[in-house]
């Protein structure tokens, strides 16, 4: 049974956490994440969610509390954004190293400075290498679904790693959309009770987080790399199971009108939905454009990407952050690296758009598609560009 209703993505996520019976929520207020934890604290106070809510004094404390609660086997959830995620940075590495299956929503927002509360992906891109599973939602329904999925995947004993669900701040967090809200039984049938792989237990004592001397540090990191890479199998499996159970399919890389496309554009997050509109408009004019939506960011879905791009000669990548002084767009640079040794590889055209809440209208997508057709025609790859930059 599911109910069709309208709600903010933030509220939908909080309801999902409630349906998943989280034991602990520890969080600090930060825009645009606050509605999630506000709603969760109401659900806790109203007795709908039997959890402890900890209103900690900073995000650094939030993630530290989460590590503690997860270590004793409590189903643990937190949410943050931007500076809050950055403040967690130190502890973010600890959670996967200790195999703690924490679930966190990140309402993606730009980093200071200048101070900006608006949406882009500079927060998550700065946390690329923390060892978490990282996935992106494009709308409220996906944010809800992927939250439920995140608990299932994180707690899968083959994985036992933290999962970050990214959803765009304001564009999703503060927008009311129609969602299908599953009922408790359906969620419980998908999400088994949490049986931790490792836990602090007085009857079988273990020490978590001790020193890794040079003799073993390398091996621990090798294990983390293997674990996260190998999480790919369980990810696809649990997403498929989600599709069968709830009727909504998710894939590591998803496509839109890509089959016969001459040029492809790759997006991550909510702007994929605007991009779909832009694709439709181009298609009406008879132009064969298509879209790739990179849903799974870590572990990086290499094979899905190769399959989705196929023999297409031109691939545009729209980044929402800049790697300053480096190869410009962080996603584009990874895509290019992924294809470097492939015989069949597209020309990759790099765009950065929508920084710090700058709107990305259809006309910006048109600019990008124009550039892609230009590359298709001439074979020339332009310099990376900031779309919508005011001169």
């Amino acid at each position: 049974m599911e109910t069709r209703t309208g709600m903010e993505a933030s509220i939908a996520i909080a309801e999902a956490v409630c349906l998943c019976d989280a034991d602990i929520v520890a969080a600090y207020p930060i825009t645009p994440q606050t509605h999630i934890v506000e709603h969760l604290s109401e659900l806790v106070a109203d007795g709908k969610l039997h959890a402890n809510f900890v209103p900690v004094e900073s995000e650094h404390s939030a993630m530290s509390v989460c590590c503690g609660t997860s270590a004793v086997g409590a189903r643990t959830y937190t949410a943050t954004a931007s500076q809050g995620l950055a403040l967690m940075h130190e502890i973010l590495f600890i959670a996967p190293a200790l195999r703690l299956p924490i679930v966190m929503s990140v309402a993606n927002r730009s980093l200071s400075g200048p101070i900006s509360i608006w949406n882009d992906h500079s927060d998550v891109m700065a946390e690329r290498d923390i060892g978490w599973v990282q996935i992106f939602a494009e709308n409220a329904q996906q944010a809800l679904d992927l939250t439920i999925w995140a608990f299932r995947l994180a707690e899968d004993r083959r994985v036992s790693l933290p999962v970050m669900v990214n959803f765009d701040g304001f564009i999703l967090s503060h927008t009311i959309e129609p969602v299908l809200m599953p009922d408790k039984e359906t969620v419980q049938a998908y999400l088994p009770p949490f049986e931790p792989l490792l836990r602090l237990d007085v009857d079988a004592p273990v020490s978590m987080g001790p020193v890794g001397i040079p003799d073993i540090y390398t091996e621990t990191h090798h294990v983390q790399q293997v674990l996260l890479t190998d999480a790919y199998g369980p990810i696809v499996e649990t997403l498929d199971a989600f599709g069968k159970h709830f009727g909504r399919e998710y894939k590591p890389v998803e496509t839109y009108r890509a089959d016969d496309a001459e040029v492809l554009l790759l997006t991550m997050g909510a702007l994929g939905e605007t991009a779909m509109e832009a694709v439709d408009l181009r298609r009406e004019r008879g132009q064969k454009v298509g879209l790739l939506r990179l849903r799974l960011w870590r572990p990086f879905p290499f094979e899905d990407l190769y399959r989705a791009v196929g023999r297409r000669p031109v691939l545009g990548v729209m980044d929402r952050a800049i790697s300053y002084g480096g190869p410009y767009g962080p996603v584009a640079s990874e895509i290019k690296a992924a294809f470097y040794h492939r015989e069949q590889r597209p020309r990759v055209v790099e765009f950065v758009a929508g920084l710090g809440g700058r709107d990305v209208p259809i006309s910006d997508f048109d600019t990008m598609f124009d550039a892609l057709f230009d590359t298709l025609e001439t074979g020339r790859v332009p310099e990376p560009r900031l779309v919508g930059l005011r001169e």
Partner: protein
Amino acid sequence: MSQGEHRNPVESFLRMDRMPHIWCPGCGIGIVVNCFVRALLKSKIDVDSVSVVSGIGCTGRIAGYFKVDSFHTTHGRPIPFATGLKTARPDMNIVVLSGEGDLIAIGGNHFIHAARRNVDIKVICVNNFTYAMTGGQVGPTAPLHSIATTAPYGSHERPFNLPFLAESSGATYVARWTTYHVRQLTKAMVDVLNKPGFCFVEAIAPCPTIYQRRNRMGDGLEMMRFYREHSRIANGADTRSLDIEMGGEIVVGKFIDRDRPTYLEAMDEELSKRLGNRYVPYPTGVKR
């Protein structure tokens, strides 16, 4: 009449091009800004020697409106930024103006350590009992049983009593006033601008939009009436007795005024003792 003749004396200290400001009608932050400007005027301090540092939150916006060197820092960090300013430029007057969520929760560790070291900075904390800018979550001074978005049936956490925290951490000057007590608040600011060491002024302020609305305490004006009727001036009161309860009495006054060597003085003294002439304070030739 030219426009200049209508000018409020406060205006010359503010970045009028940034007006209108973001604060709500009835908010107490504007009163604190006003008091501070008047304190600058009264203290006869060279305005060019003043730097205002603030963090994140409604009060944090102050730095952007002051026409002095100002630093709008990240959340919780104005005190360490200010410590940096003061350490590199001991001749400057460094004032931290920020909210209690910023200074006492996420930045609480900096607060107690700067007070312990007696860093020569002036900390003016606007306490409105909630994280107003993010919508009213429960904060470090939220009175027991007060309602917040993350405490929908009332807070069950024990709040900080800020003057007691400041005193026990080592502050040399500690006062608390409400925004009803504009003269005393201004006087306290004049005091701290002229006093060396870590000086702390708590300014209790209304937040009609978030805190009061949720706790059914009326608008800004009603809060001023509340302050008038429920405040008791008790200069020199024992700071342990200054807890604030929902709807209860607010004890205000100047509680602590004491002297001890500032961080830089203590460092100079200690190192001069050990190193004699070999010790040259940094930066050379600048009044500390």
